[in-house]
């Protein structure tokens, strides 16, 4: 799931790949509130994952984001 998220951040939101690590937080990724809304839309359209922008705003770092994605991925099966 980390690789999937990383590909989305790099390909769709043009985040430099070296910035995408498990420990990186939203500031490290320069992911502002508008970027979080974009990411929420992309997760829905690309992966069918329903994660709101508010939920994404609450996570601390990529590791928590990946965990949330995995949780929703299982829940939606």
């Amino acid at each position: 799931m980390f690789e999937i998220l990383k590909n989305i951040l790099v390909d769709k939101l043009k985040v430099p790949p070296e910035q995408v690590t498990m420990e990186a937080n939203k500031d490290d990724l320069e992911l502002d509130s508008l970027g979080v809304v974009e990411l929420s839309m992309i997760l829905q359209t690309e992966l069918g994952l329903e994660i709101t922008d508010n939920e994404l705003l609450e996570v601390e770092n990529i590791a928590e984001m990946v965990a949330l994605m995995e949780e929703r991925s299982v829940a939606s099966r």
Partner: protein
Amino acid sequence: MTGLDVAVIGLGLVTPGGVGIEASWAAVQKGTSTAAHDPELAGNPVAISCRVPGFDPDALLGARRALRLDRYVQLALVAAHEATADAGLDPSAWDDERVGVVIGTAGGGLRTFEAQQQALLDQGPSQVSPLLLPMYLPNMVAGQIAIEFGARGPNLVVSTACASGATAIGAACDLLNSGRCDLVLAGGTEALLEPLTMAGFARMGALSRLEDPGTASRPFDADRDGFVAAEGAAVLVLQRAADARADGRRIRGRIVGYGASADAYHITKPDPEGRGATAAIQAALSDADASADDVQHVNAHGTSTPLNDLAEAQLLAKLLPGRPLVTSTKGVTGHMLGAAGAVEAAFLVLTVETGTVPPTANLANLDPQIDIDVATAPTPMRIDLALSNSFGFGGQNAVLAIAPA
């Protein structure tokens, strides 16, 4: 306002002639039209345009930055980078609260607006981008330039349709003359070559329908039938001339007059009596403390529409009986709409600086109703005073008077 004396200390150009001053100036001097069939407009009633060749926003601005910018802002930012570098300015060292930004645009980010409207219709509101407004709003170009360079003075966008770029430069001169700013990045930008806007222009009957794109934009020619739409941007770095001299700046030219007016006549047709345009030219001459006989050259609005070119030529013949040499660079570049006035002001600065008037492309047979002298080849001449005319739909007029350093 009289006694205007503002130095142009830096230029930045992104035009259908190319990215940068050098490519843009070489293209207008060459005098060959840049218009071409436009695949992105396939299916539109008119599918020719003048696009900026080789414009790579990811390479010029960085992919992350470019992703969040409508093309009209991308073009302006690249022009602003060239202009600040050309002026030898270090934005990290300037007195940021004294630096203003004034940019003209007719439509702002309508390309983004149109794409997001499509997303709304196709997929519903949940698929509308959160960046719709920050990308589309017309004021964003000045805000983005402020962010890019750290300019914390007055920051505004003006919109007078096809006069926007010239109005922006005039408004910037007012900010300098009133003492509100010490430096202003002023210019115009436009990127409206998308199907909806182009359909609108075509439905108005404003666009050329000539078959051969290369000869479609033909200002003042007997066979002209409309303009060719173009994209582009120009940014000029402006400083009060006395300050520029004291700072030891290289001065490329000076803006010595600005006239602004409204026709108060019709939404698109020029006033046949030219009252508004006359007032603008006279105001610019008054600023410059000059008479009509002092004008040696005019960079005309010269869009290649039947109505504009006839009305403008008749006005010039009447107001400037000394027969200054007239040119319209739109024969080469097409009509950059809200950017045109700024791009042409930059071209006029280069004309005065180099002493070479660029030719009007595609002028094969001067309209017999037109009695002005139009340059058809690059013409060397020393110029002490020249005018740049810009007239917008809505009857909004802006005229700049430009002199050498």
